């Protein structure tokens, strides 16, 4: 399953980049995130409640960040286990383009694989839900970053 989209954020690129690395920001933005612990600069652990159609499950998982391309690009990979509901793993490549000193275009290309009950519900549900969740994340993200820049 592949997801991609772009969103314009009214904030300078370095502020956007910093926020992507900030567990507090991520926790606020990830839909259903109950807990996000930073183990190192590149290792995070998350607990997320996910609901796809009739399946609702708590996913525990790890996220690894790759900051080698900072501040233009940023990658993350992660995997989560939802017990009987299944398993998910995936990654995203994020590129940040400064449209002007105060505006950044965020583009993401994400890939995800799911197994178990989640996958069996049929790709049309999963795809739609994943797209919605990703959109929701970046919407939240833009809002939080813009809020911080304004504040």
């Amino acid at each position, binding site marked *: 399953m592949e997801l991609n989209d772009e969103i314009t954020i009214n904030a300078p690129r370095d502020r956007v980049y910093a926020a992507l690395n900030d567990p507090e920001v991520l926790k606020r933005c990830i839909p259903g995130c109950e807990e996000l612990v930073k183990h190192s600069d590149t290792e995070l652990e998350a607990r997320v409640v996910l609901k796809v159609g009739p399946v609702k499950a708590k996913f525990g998982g790890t996220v690894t960040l790759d900051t080698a391309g900072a501040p233009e690009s940023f990658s993350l990979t992660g995997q989560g286990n939802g017990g*009987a509901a299944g*398993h998910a793993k995936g990654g995203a490549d994020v590129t940040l383009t400064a449209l002007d000193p105060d505006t950044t275009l965020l583009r993401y290309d994400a890939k995800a694989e799911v*197994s*178990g009950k989640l996958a*069996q*519900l*049929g790709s049309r549900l999963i795809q739609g839900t994943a797209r919605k969740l990703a959109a929701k994340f970046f919407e939240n993200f833009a809002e939080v970053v813009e809020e911080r820049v304004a504040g």
Partner: protein
Amino acid sequence: MKDEVESREDRVGKLKGLGCSRKRVEDARFTQGKGNYVDDIKLDGMLFGDFVRSPYAHARITGINIDAALKVPGVLAVLTAKDLEPLGLHWMPTLAGDRQMVLADGKVLFQGQEVAFVVAEDRYAAADGIEAVEVEYEELPVLVNPFESLKSDVVLREDTVDEDGAPKDGAHGPRKHHNHIFTWEAGDRDTTEQVISEAEVVAESDMYYHRTHPCPLETCGCVASMDKVNGKLTLWGTFQAPHAIRTVVSLISGIEEHNIRVISPDIGGGFGNKVGAYPGYVCSVVASIVTGKPVKWIEDRMDNLMTTAFARDYHMTGRISATKDGKITGLHCHVTADHGGFDACADPTKFPAGFMNICTGSYDIPTAFLEVDGVYTNKAPGGVSYRCSFRVTEAVYFIERMIEVLAIKLNMDAAELRRINFIRKEQFPYTAALGWEYDSGDYHTAWEKALKAVDYEGLRAEQAQRIEDFKAGKTRKLMGIGLSFFTEIVGAGPVKNCDILGLGMFDSCEIRIHPTGSAIARLGTISQGQGHATTFAQILASEIGLPADSITIEEGDTDTAPYGLGTYGSRSTPVAGAATAMAGRKIRAKAQMIAAYLLEVHDDDVEFDVDRFVVKGAPERFKTMKEIAFAAYNQAIPGIEPGLEAVSYYDPPNMTYPFGAYVCVMDIDVDTGVPEIRRFYALDDCGTRINPMIIEGQVHGGLTEALAVALGQEIAYDDMGNVKTGTLMDFFLPTAWEVPNYETDHTVTPSPHHPIGAKGVGESPHVGGVPCFSNAVQDAFRPFGNVHTNMPHDHWRIWKTAHDLGLHG
């Protein structure tokens, strides 16, 4: 005095015997919600078991922690392979000579595989317990394509290779690769190759008959109750073969067979899904023994679609040769059969690809060769015959597509090509190139009747006009005419070549006539909706002259019914129906002696007449069967012991070969891919017709399941082995919305070896229907260069076919 004035016709009518459209006696309880299905069984203290299932298609299990699950309120026990191992029950034999894990033994081979069995006070506590079981998996590479599986280094079944990794011999001989299961051959390879290589015309096609599922409305389930006081195990369940289940349970559990009672209550459809033995049955029995309480296990819809008994999944490659005039000279078929993680196909032991060797169909093909390779993949096990005799739907689809492909190559009308190749009436009994002896048939008569009924010439003319209109831009709808002529092979079967796990495939009937002239008959089969209680009483009514309404039919309780191999493969009428007639004849033979005594004449001087024995030449002197029944019990007759009972175990001398001619007319919107079935005509010849109304119902049902399979129903997997069609949202079950009006018709060519000439009909419409619907879709695109596209022809695939042929401009 009334009897004297009653006409013979009235007396026949009163019996409601053969040929009567008697209403189904079962329906009173079904339509009033008074059926008794396995999930209706509620026993004191009954527990509920359910499975922790694998989310992965292929993974090693590195740990299972059940501690948290045992703390969930209401959870009593959690069984894993480790608990079953000391009992030798962590694996079980399959019907195909392989073995299957009951609970995951170190690894899982398909998504949804049973990993642990949680036993709880109710279904909800069990579900909570399942959530709390922690299983550690280590993912392994997934193989969902049998061709890749045969090339892969990944060993799916470590238990089937020796220490060097070389494949051990399987149940059907040497294996070519560690993921290969068997090779099965029929026919003459060299001659077939030679005939094809020298032929004037050869047509070839690859076709994939996709994986699907019988999907009965009622899923599989059971209730196991071990009575520790008397040592008796009672097992209620959705079993299509209760006696075979009893024997299998006895063999694998060590409980003596007299201490096991298996009961199949009302069953809400089977279609092959309920033939096999599943881990749920074994775990329920063990859980009942462990807890000392009855344990129920009932699948939910996802469990059913994902884990118990899929159907089809045959990759077929065909070559067919003919003269320029269209006379077929040879046929070659190779099948790569995807059997999933365990070979649990339900076929007679000597036939690992079922009766796929009926694939020469209804045609006089002098030379043929068939080779089937079974392959392990990371998919669910099964391979049952979904509303057909063993793999016959695959065989008929294959030949009916090959005929169409050959017709294209010859630029010939497909109806004409069939006509010139049919086995002729005078050739029966006909021995086919792949070995079967067809009992009887009159294909040309059936075909001409069908073509005339639909005005075939007129349809072709209309189609030609439509093509012109389409090319001229006047319409966006194409017209397809689907043809299919099928011959089934049903009624397995003769014990000399048909057994399952060594159990001979005879069947049985036991009749007791009551003193007042009513009766009970018990059979080794079990109805799942076929209406046995109605039709078997009719067979008996005609044989013994008591009204069908006075005859109770009972099946499914192994403590009371005689041993039989159950109901699937359209075997009930050909085998148990024959046993019923034969047992009836034994009753009649004794009744004849009693009648002769009562009438004070010699046995040879009385003859049977509808419902009585009459003195030959003096029909006014008679004794009715009712009178004879009373005398049998209550009158001292010298040399004849009291009572009127009979048992027959019937081992059929041959299979029966029902056939039929189907035509489907379809309009296809090339821009939406939506097919509209304008007309469906089905002519069935099932030999002697017992109950025309029930036959019609069976034809409607079989055609509807054929429509489902041809037009959208599939079990699809993604590359990771996820089942993408695990719910009825994605798995197509046709409703009244999709189903057209069916026109049914018949000819009657009795089976010469069956006591009443009946051949069986429950599955014919499915077998003949699938290629008919598919051929209609393919025929619509034939003028634009289509040779073959794979089923299921859902809207998207039809749209894609139109698109690939350049019909979207």
